[in-house]
């Protein structure tokens, strides 16, 4: 790891004052579980690291009648264990609680999860000069791409969005509270993620002098759930993930305002419009959920090694819908 100066501001204003107008030289430090890995591989070589660990404001959780605000510094463990969050947003609590293992969840933060870099092995290899460094080629396009995008969305980089919290927050209609020198603003979560396509670009749409302060989730009585497919039951990255939310939809009731958002299949979270239309105003059964799962693969263009993900999309969407509807998870029996 290249050495750096370590700053420990006590307020968000102080943190903002240390940031620069480009990414790379100064990095924000949340839990460190992503940044330090990148530093150890010399993929990230900041001269200055600004720790957010001393900012008390980032640790708050406020549960109000109309919305819930979660500080960006809250750990994934504290989110997955929070009784009110578990009750209101089981999709969020489940997703946060399934990430990696307990040690990592005790360190990794909400803000860090949203802003982390992608997991592409070409990007993370010090010696691979890919599109996101100073190269001009995405090596995964014709290379080892079994964990990459099946909806490339026109992006030249085909790495998948790494955040498993992102798709859940899109399904829940959340907004991200962002602060810079000009003040605070709210960014709708659907506009938060952006596919990087060159050196100096990130997996989100924020500027290098922005700090994620909190996430706001409206309380709308949405039925919601999250299901992810992994190769191992723990300490693994999902291969495909589905987050769903809707009004009603339990005990044979019809589901309306359905949202289905996929993770790990595209450079940004993928809103599965055809699947949403397929299940809208239907009661959720194994048949209707399976039909929505099939619809969720519409428009996919798998790469050379990842067509298997299409079947997993069908499974993830079907099971997330069934979980949300209150059906017995037959796959655990």
């Amino acid at each position, binding site marked *: 790891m290249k050495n750096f100066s370590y700053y*420990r*501001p006590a307020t968000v204003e102080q943190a903002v*004052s240390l940031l620069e107008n480009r990414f790379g030289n100064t990095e924000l430090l949340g839990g460190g579980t992503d940044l330090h890995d990148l530093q150890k591989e010399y993929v990230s070589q900041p001269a200055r690291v600004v720790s957010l660990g001393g900012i008390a404001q980032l640790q708050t959780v406020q549960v109000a009648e109309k919305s819930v605000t979660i500080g960006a510094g809250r750990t994934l463990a504290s989110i997955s264990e929070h009784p009110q969050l578990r009750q209101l947003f089981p999709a969020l609590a489940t997703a946060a609680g399934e990430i990696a293992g307990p040690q990592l969840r005790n360190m990794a933060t909400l803000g860090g999860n949203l802003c982390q870099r992608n997991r592409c092995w070409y990007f993370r290899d010090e010696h691979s000069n890919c599109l996101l460094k100073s190269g001009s080629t995405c090596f995964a396009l014709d290379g080892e791409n079994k964990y990459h995008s099946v909806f490339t969305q026109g992006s030249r980089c085909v790495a998948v969005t790494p955040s498993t919290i992102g798709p859940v927050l899109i399904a829940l209609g959340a907004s991200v509270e962002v602060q810079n020198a000009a003040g605070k603003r709210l960014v709708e979560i659907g506009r938060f993620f952006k596919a990087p396509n060159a050196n100096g670009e990130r997996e989100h749409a924020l500027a290098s002098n922005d700090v994620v302060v909190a996430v706001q989730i409206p309380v709308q009585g949405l039925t919601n759930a999250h299901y992810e497919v992994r190769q191992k039951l723990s*300490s693994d990255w999902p291969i495909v993930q589905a987050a769903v939310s809707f009004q009603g939809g339990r005990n044979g009731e019809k589901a309306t305002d359905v949202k289905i958002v996929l993770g790990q299949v595209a450079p940004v979270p993928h809103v599965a419009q055809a699947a949403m239309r397929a299940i809208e105003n239907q009661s959720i059964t194994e048949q209707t959920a399976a039909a929505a799962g099939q619809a969720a693969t519409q428009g996919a263009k798998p790469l050379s090694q990842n067509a298997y993900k299409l079947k997993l999309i069908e499974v993830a969407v079907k099971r997330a819908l069934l979980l949300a509807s209150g059906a017995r998870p037959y796959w655990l029996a």
Partner: protein
Amino acid sequence: MSSSKDSPKSGLSRRDFLRAGGAAATSVTGLAGATLETQAQPGQPPASHIPVLGPGPAKISLNVNGREMSTAVEPRVTLLDALRNYLDVTGCKRVCDRGTCGACTVMLEGKPVYSCSMLAVEAQGKAIRTAESLVDGGKLDPVPEKFVQFDAQQCGFCTPGFVVAMRAVLDRNPKATPEDVEQGLQGNICRCGTYEQMRDAIYSLCNRPRRS
């Protein structure tokens, strides 16, 4: 795969870094522990006196197993390396060094964390517990004691991480079930594959009979 043909790579290579590192470290030592005066942004209170450490070695104090220990580390030194190489607390082990295997597990304020993925400077002011705390005057804590009884290790290199993670579960919930303990071990790997003996130890710790 072709590599770095397109343009020269930015930043230092490992070799350049090793060559320059020693000189850099000595030349900037004076900065350690300073505070930075920043300019006030328009419409904002002045952001002054932001604590800054490094890039040279900075004096830090860590509370390890109830003892205050101090040393000087560069900001890039992880908690794991500070414990092992600067403070000679060698229970926590360096295996993957990427927050995956669990051999470096320590408790921070009672919660298990990967010490390889945290800076030593970030652990200041927090109670750190390592595997060394699981023996008192030659008497083993029940967790490692059950490991011995059930032969729950082979090479033993992952064991300090496992016993700390297990102790964290039982401290938090003394009535934890074997399932709870196993959940708490999701972030640890044993490459020798002694999981079955560990299960015996866990069931015994939880006072449950284990059906084979």
